[in-house]
């Protein structure tokens, strides 16, 4: 794959980390989600071939297939990232309900 995807991955990481550092819990969760997407895009970018046809055995004679290994990795990663996202949002909803705030800076009990 080409270098643009790599640069886009870097940019997505920057956006994701910046969002992660916001006061608003929901924005932070969105930052997490952006990071998930960025990682998937990275895996996609390091695929071995510049695919012309999809990775089906019947297509192999027609051109370079796309890399099936990274696809399999991404496929399961997408489902897992959904699970993690659900957990994260569940935690946020629970803590917002418990501490009556969605602002991370007003939550300062995690200390000795």
């Amino acid at each position, binding site marked *: 794959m080409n270098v643009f995807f790599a640069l886009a991955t870097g940019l997505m990481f920057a956006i994701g980390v910046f969002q992660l550092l916001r006061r608003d819990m929901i924005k932070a969760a969105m930052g997490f989600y952006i990071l998930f997407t960025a990682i998937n895009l990275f895996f996609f970018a390091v695929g071995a071939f510049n695919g012309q046809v999809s990775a089906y055995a019947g297509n192999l004679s027609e051109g370079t297939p796309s890399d*099936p290994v990274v696809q399999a990795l991404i496929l399961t990663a997408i489902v897992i990232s959904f699970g993690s996202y659900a957990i994260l949002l569940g935690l946020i909803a629970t803590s917002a309900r418990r501490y009556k705030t969605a602002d991370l800076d007003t939550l300062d009990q995690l200390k000795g």
Partner: protein
Amino acid sequence: MVRPFAFWQLLLHAAPTDKQRVMHLKLVSSTTTTPETGTHVAKLPFAWIVSLLTALVFIYLLSSLPTVTEVGALQVSLPWVPALGLSLSLYVDGLALMFALIVVGVGAVVALYAGYYFDNSRELNCFYGQLFAFMASMLALVVAGNVFTLFIAWELTSVISFLLISFHGDHSEAARTGALRALIITAGGGLALLVGLSLMSAAAGTTEISQILSGAALQDHPWYTAFTVLVFVGCFSKSAQFPLHFWLPGAMSAPTPASAYLHSATMVKAGIYLLLRLSPALSGTPLWENGLMLVGLATLLIGAALALRQYDLKGALAYSTVSQLGVLVALIGLPHGEGLEAALIGILAHSLYKATLFLTAGAVDHAVGTRDLRKLGGLALALPGWAVIAALAGLSMAGIPPLLGFVAKEVLLESLLETPLALIVVVASAALTVTMALIFVWDVFLGPPRAEHHVHEPAWGLLVGPSVLAGGALIAGLGLDWLINPLISPALEHEAHLALWHGLNPPFLLSLTAIAIGVGVFALRHRWRAWSLPLPNAVSAYNAVVGSVEKVGDLVLRTQHGKLRHYLFVILAAVTLLQLSAGFSHVTGIEFQWDGELDLLRGLLLILALGTMIGSIFLKRHMMAALVLGVAGYSVGGLFLLEPAPDVALVQFMVETLGTVLIIIMLSKISAPQREAAMNDLWKQSRFTLYRDIALSAMVGVGVALFAVAAINNRAIAHTIATWHLENAVPLLGFSDVVGAIVTDFRGMDTIIEITVFSVAALGVLTLLAKPSPGGVIPKRISIPRPSPRLKVFQLGAAPDEPVDVQHAQETEGEELSFESHFSTPLTRTIAQLVLPFALIVALSQLFYGGEAPGDGFTAGVISGLGVTLWYVVFGYRESQRRLGWLKPRYLIGAGLILVIVNAASPMLSGLAFAAHVNFDQIHLPADLHLSTTFLYETGIFLTVLGCTSTVMEAITYPKEIEPL
């Protein structure tokens, strides 16, 4: 409840029948009463079965005694982590077998006793779990053939002992401190042991115990002192030797069956076992002999003295155990292995009588409600059976013929005849032991009865186990020739000649002296109990160490201010700095090529994805930001589609939809004022922290971009495994969809783990948001118990069809059902009802034809999950729960996981590898269908993913009021 027509009812929009409604209400009401108190009737057969099964293991082990006697040692070895010299090897010689018999035999007795001891079936189940986990670890410890497997089992016993001591830790401070102290001492000693064993293995050149024992002598090795001392520390901490003995009395907070088992018969003998095990390789030096003798004698004297000063029955027994362990250590230290015979018989005798006494103490506690010696007395008439057993065990402890304890004491005194100092100490402690036995038997069962307590007769079943042990001590004493000698001889590796009567020899006279002194001390007990002795104790040293650790911890905590995102900043900054300091420069051979090409469509999608992500930073409304991120996800999906990667694109589109629905529903669960407040303050931070965050993000971004470019430019494309997968999908699996082949077969093990993780995540969300009760039952709480004029309270007794005022519900913070009112129109309801069956049909087709076309178990699960999601969005929680009752998400998760694992394991039955591919070609199916293990695998994935998605949706739409802070 099987409801075959539920699917059609759903299509026909049928209301549930009255019967179902009643069932529903019954379910609701049954969860409100917690089944807390179990009866004895229900669990007793279970206790007997468990105990008899353990007894069968005992018999099996016993049946291998002749073989062990003949061969010397049974050995099995399986490589585990060969690179680390770690192997799963067993080494069962006479010594290991003797200990294994004690572990399993006393275990069977304790298991039966526990069945009658616990009133509460939940406690009993919990106890059984820990008891058998302990039994397994302890067995592994004694039969381990590799020093590291031995160490792992060793630490496991410490951990389970911690759990058992803190069994009642939720309401007992003493149990918590006792458990922690025991863990710190025994596990800390374990660390010393680990270092010692590692050094010893390095010195011996092998980690196998059999080779260490048969190899070259270690006594002359330069590291000998170091590793022997470290092994000593480990053994002394575990076997409660002075000055580390103080954890054992603190461990008496454990339930009495655990004290009897772990803290008298088995775990505390692990140190003794290891010393015995290693004595052929390490003994014969002044360090070994003097060290063990000194520590053992000190322990035995201090333990005996402390035992007499205890008023708690269990505490007294604990200190007397300390004293006995001291005797055993001193015996192992005798030169030329002269004390080994006495040590082995002592271990047997002690296990039999001390476990009996502990179990008796438990029964007395049960019957009278106290273990305080000052409040006990004259219980022989009320508890005659227990009096007899206690008397037998007490006689054995005091060393009165014909019990096993007598033989043990005779052998002990005989082996010490050559060392006068030790002999004096041992005779003194034997006298104190006699006193202890008298206190236990006389003061509890005889003596003046105390009227202040009501005696509650313990269940007869409690008596069975201890009678076996006490009877064992008697029979063993009488049947030395046919019972004890054959058992001890293989452990000693020479013939043992124990006899009950050796004539009027010096040991017997010494024994008589000890008994006389002991009786005398007992008679004067009211005088010396008032004395205060300045006995050395290491508790204060322990407290000082633990206290100073806590002080240092407090200092570290000062650096924390509680602002989460600043912690996050520090973590990310540290990672970035590490990366910077490592740099890319020292990595040679990495190319950075900055050329690339991008067609218009891909470029647009990429810009769209990035632009929407940047937009999500600045958008002022969460809903907009969520939708915009959905667009970003779809753009990435489009990129996948253009690759072309149809399978991935399909999943990406589906999951993106789910994710967007998820966050929108979640937004409704966080109250709008709170979200607005957070949003308004979003940019309220000092200019410095803003620039700081931007700088960090930029650094991370640049680092990742460099890494990604390097990764792309330097992939070893010529050696990619992708080619292999492309070539072998059809020949090996008959799959033309290579991605599907990788997910379901080539990397099938990964997939099993991934769906397990996904299941855990889904259940986690459910636990967070739907808050199941501790018993695992999810209470169907659908009411807000506060009186609210604007909200109709939905009560348990009301019919489930009664409408909740959802329009107003959105204004109260708990009942977050606002999205229902917007989406629930006749049109959307019809669509939702139609979509689910179609989604299921699509899912089935993907399952059946997953090998040839895009889609597999994951996509099938996600697609049908989307259908369920639509239901929850349109109909809301209650109606979906009621009308999708046939869909049981947790059952689906369980069924899917079981199917996947059973399917992966079943080829092993016919000698194939785990998760091997089997094609059932002999079964002919219409319409080009192929049945294979892969198909079952996909079905399992489908069920799990569907179950997980439904669980998540059920959890996030679950209505709930705000918990009080």
